[in-house]
């Protein structure tokens, strides 16, 4: 279920906050309202009718910050900050 926050919702299915992974890349998978703008670190998406977004990020060894923002045309914005640790 979408997580309400203000008037726009943002849901991140993967990765989980504080996840520790052993690969140098991680898939960020989530959902937001159709037509909303989502940025995941330096990647930008215009969310389609399926409300899904997905991108693959490269990780540095050690702790990494994943910053996900979603906004709508009215200027409503919500965000999530996740930390993911890459342990080779």
């Amino acid at each position: 279920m979408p997580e309400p926050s203000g008037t726009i919702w943002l849901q991140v299915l993967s990765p989980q906050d504080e996840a520790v992974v052993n690969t140098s890349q991680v898939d960020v998978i989530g959902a937001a309202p159709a037509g909303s703008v989502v940025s995941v670190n330096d990647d930008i998406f215009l969310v389609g009718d399926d409300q899904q977004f997905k991108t693959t990020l490269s990780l540095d060894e050690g702790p990494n910050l994943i910053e996900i923002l979603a906004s709508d045309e009215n200027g409503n914005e919500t965000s999530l900050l996740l930390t993911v640790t890459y342990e080779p």
Partner: protein
Amino acid sequence: MHKYRFFLFLTLSLALLLVTSQAFASSGNPQGQHTPGPNTPGARATEKANERATQQAGNPHGKHENFKGTVSAIDSTSITLTLRDGSSVTVGLSADTRMKFPGRPDLRPTSIQPGMRAMVRAIRDQSGNLIARAVMVIPGKPTKIHRVGIVTEYMAGSSITIQDKNGNTYTFTISGEIKLLPPERAGTLAVGARVTIIAPRDPASGGVIVKGIVIHPATP
């Protein structure tokens, strides 16, 4: 005969004393890893955090341990975090500790202050002390912003100014390659277009440099 008995008694006494002193000496912890401290909540919490860290590590001398929390103290030699469960953990800093400040290249290790959130990746040295391999500061707010408005000025490759629904105007620098979405509406980017601009929250020396522009469909 009396002399012989006296020396025998003396020898046995010395041997007994030696054995007894060794027995007392070995009753302590030879590695000194567990030292009962004051029974304060803080001390108990720290001890609990260290115990948990050791449990998480499995191999306390070889595996990295990760801690996320709020900086409660920091100096040139160590950083102390208050963890989510209220416990605290102190990790040593060294010249090899890597500092990360996502989205804030202006920050320096001396910029880390109590109250900031941070993630620490640490490893235990031969003495069992935690030493930080990396410290990453977690920003209180996202390092980027999404700004929605109507374009009031646009100079391709140079700058773009928008006015939001409250009448505030924002000017952004266009430098290098930016992402225009959706590609089929890139040609409609002009004065009057409704856009969302993605840019760093904190201005760089050259102004707020646009990362991307999303052009929304024209409203009838």
